[in-house]
């Protein structure tokens, strides 16, 4: 896995964007990601749709690599850690988590995270609906934007469609950033891309296997 990074200034903090669907906040030694949707493959299978588990294992393998690379003290999941009701995938994840007991884990609850607080606490996650650290506010879907606040959110699964000369098209996942908001790409590879945006004056940081591009 080839990690390409790009530092940006957001809400007076320096944040590192990566081409691997995570954000790193050096000052806090915090790895930030969103929309892992653990349990999605098994949820599909429960409903008779055969999706192999390799999809989940690949996501976890990628995350492990990133944690080992950045060596964060904190892991921040900005919502949709789990996809649906408890299923076999959860056990795989819980077992996998045991190797990172030293990392502080924070979950911002997303629309899919419907379990009781105790459930997450037992997994070692502090949960919040919204959490502010320094100038940055973490929330799953930034519906309300207050002046002089800076939001990091997920939920949208942002992507960008690019029209090049000669009528050529490209579609890539991205981080969407404007003066007050930063929207994270979905971490799981078993997610689609939403190329519509409601942000104004947005800069898209699209990425590929070997580049991060400012568009």
């Amino acid at each position: 896995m080839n990690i390409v990074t790009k530092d940006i200034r957001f809400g007076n903090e320096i944040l590192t964007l990566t081409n691997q669907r995570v954000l790193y906040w050096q000052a806090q030694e915090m790895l930030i990601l969103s929309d892992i949707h653990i349990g999605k493959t098994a949820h599909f299978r429960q409903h008779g749709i055969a999706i192999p588990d390799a999809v989940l294992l690949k996501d976890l393998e990628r995350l492990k690599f990133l944690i080992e690379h950045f060596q964060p003290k904190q892991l921040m999941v900005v919502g949709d850690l789990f996809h649906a009701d408890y299923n076999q995938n959860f056990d795989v994840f819980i077992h996998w988590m045991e190797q990172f007991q030293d990392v502080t884990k924070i979950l911002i609850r997303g629309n899919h995270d419907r379990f009781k607080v105790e459930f997450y606490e037992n997994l070692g996650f502090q949960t919040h609906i919204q959490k502010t650290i320094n100038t940055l506010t973490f929330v799953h879907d930034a519906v309300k934007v207050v002046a002089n606040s800076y939001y990091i959110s997920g939920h949208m699964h942002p992507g960008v469609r690019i029209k090049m000369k000669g009528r050529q098209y490209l579609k890539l996942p991205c981080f969407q950033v404007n003066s007050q908001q930063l929207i994270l790409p979905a971490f799981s590879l078993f997610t689609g891309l939403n190329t519509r945006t409601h942000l104004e004056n947005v800069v898209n940081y699209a990425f590929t296997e070997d580049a991060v591009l400012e568009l």
Partner: protein
Amino acid sequence: MPKLEQTEGYRIIHNWMADKGYAPFDFQLKSWKKYAQNYHGLVVAPTGFGKTYAMFLAVLIDYLNHPEQYKKGIKLLWISPLRSLAKDLQKAMQTAIDEIGLDWQAAVRNGDTSTAVRRKQERNMPDILLTTPETMHLLFSQKKNSRWFKNIRCVVVDEWHELLSTKRGVLTELAIARLRSLSPNIRIWGVSATIGNLEEAKNVLIPYKNVNTTIVTSKEKKKLKIISLLPDEVELLPWAGHLGGKLAKNVLKVIYENNTTLVFTNTRNQAEMWYQLLLNEDADLAGQIAIHHGSIDAKLRNWIEDAINEGLLKVVVCTSSLDLGVDFKPVDCVVQVGSAKGIARFMQRAGRSGHAPNEISKVYFVPTHALELIEVSALKEAVKKRDVEARTPMVLTYDVLVQFLVTLAVGEGFDKEKAFEMIRETHAFSYLTKDDFTWAMQFITKGGKTLHAYEEFHKVVFDDEKELFVVKSRRISMLHRMNIGAIVSDAMLRVKFMKGGYVGMIEEYFISKLKVGMPFVLAGRILEIVHIKDMTVIVRRSKAKKAITPSWKGGRLPLTSYLSHYLRLKLNDALQPSIRERELKFLNPLLTTQNIHSHIPKSDEFLVEKIQTREGCHLFFFPFEGRLVNEIMASLIAYRISKIQPITFSIAMNDYGFGLLSDQEIPVTEENLKIILSKENLMEDVIASINASEVASRKFRDIAVIAGLVVQSHPGARKTNKSLQSSSSLIFKVLEDYEPNNLLLRQAYTEVFNEQLEEARLHEAFDRISKSTLILKEAKSYTPLSFPIKVDSLRNTMSNEKLSDRIARLQKQQYKLIT
């Protein structure tokens, strides 16, 4: 055995017909005789000659002669591809039954049938059931369904030519196989229009050994008159376009010269536009004009169909939604807007007018752009020769197989060995191997390969007590029933008035681009969105004068190879038209322009045009092979050029040719053109050139839905199954990465080769090109031949540059983000 004419049953039917002033046609009599002799078969006759009576009365005669052989419940099952057909057929049948004095009941059951009626039928099935392939499978998914089919004597598949080359045809084959296993003496009959491969059509419908089969063809031929509507000057016809709006006045004149006119368009979007055009041209039409297409609410469509029959309407703008079906007696004129793209389809549409036997069918053709006139000229030639396309049946469609197995499991459950034998009897699965079947079983019981037995996957389970494979989960049964069928459409929303009443259906994709209050057109009305809830768009009438017309995806069919053959011949003579060639004579000024600025290819020539514009360097090729084959040729040529130098193209094509556009100079000369167009290594290069996985991913869309891998949300549904939403392209990628041997993936690739590549046609095309003289012309601006490709076309990208190189180029040039 007595002669049929001497039997009581024949006498009764004959007298009934005589009372009405009819005598049976020869083919009807022959069908009755063959039916009485226990034959299975196919009845072929043009529209309007009483194909229905050929089969329906055959069964009645048999019943009248042998009432003791008929038991309670469904006796005749009538499967037709269109729901709208059923209603009128049922009326006609019931009237005949009542007049003859039988106590039979004919009833319709399909997606439009109310729950109350369906429940009633399930308690007491009618004697004749008119239904669709999908509804048959829905019936199979019910508990204890076999009791309904035990006493069936005959199954008739109406408009079999329409089903034949589709997955709905495979559903029909499977339905017949199951009916036959429940009622072994069932007689199987098909009703078809003329197609190029009738013998094969019969064998697909009736693949069973040890039965007698026959094809009964009517001698009656429909007379057909094709008239092009031409503007006063050729300049008034655009070089490219898809509306033909300039000719609205001429169409109006035709409408007033006739009683009732059907205006056929090729897409729903075109239909909506023409409805507006005609109304704008003549406000007096209000109240006498209607619009009919597949996205208009069923109730509204039924009302329109009734109104046509009662002669209340002067004109109906429609799409293929009215291609088939019962004849509308008042219709005496048909207008076709734009090319029908195929000989069979054109003849079918033409047959909607002058339906009475021996009346002439009149059809007026409205060109949407100038070159289409050559197509008409080709069409006339083909119709004269009655050279009609063949329809290729589909085989080994694993998606339909998987769906059918689950349907059986949801219904009564199935025995593995018996199911395999039954399925193998159909034409579609006659080459199904034990291995493939085992794979399908694993797919529905274990979710994939045996090695990964997922505990939580229990779609289909083995019931030890019943010793059958069944579905136990109610949720899975429910999801499956919602998914039965082989028609895959984009996510659609129902459109409903705030005050109540449905207008029709619209694609989610289109609605997502509209904001609340923005006016749009549907069913000929200007509407605005009030809000969207669940899968329903609530609208009210808008006062706006102008509104956006939605475009529904799909529906654009490629030119058939039969027609393209005639097209090339016509082009050959285009500059010296004979006196009778009205279209070609009219086009002469335009063709002369083409000839001066570039060239008109003779039938032994192949034309390539090179044009520099602000957009970049264009290269246009004109194989006239229909859109799909042109698309494949385009990627192939792009690939061969890119071997000379790394380059990225955007590719455009229409039915006549294709264009390659690059921001870089395209290195093509008369010398290397020979190599670029050579037939050497054809298929190897094709495979290397098409991003097979991308094309297959597109094909996989339907497969994923039919096999139940993607849950479709249904228009108007309250629950959207959000947590189960994913896209077929995502699943395609997952399977490619982790389960490359999945048969559904393999099927996607096979479909690419059979349907998209049309390997045989491609070989033929390159063979022809290799024998042709290559002509490379540099033109200063777009020519009459290349212009339509440039503006009216579908586009793709072909690249052999690395993504990183393209990205590097992207950063150096101008680009645009699309949101």
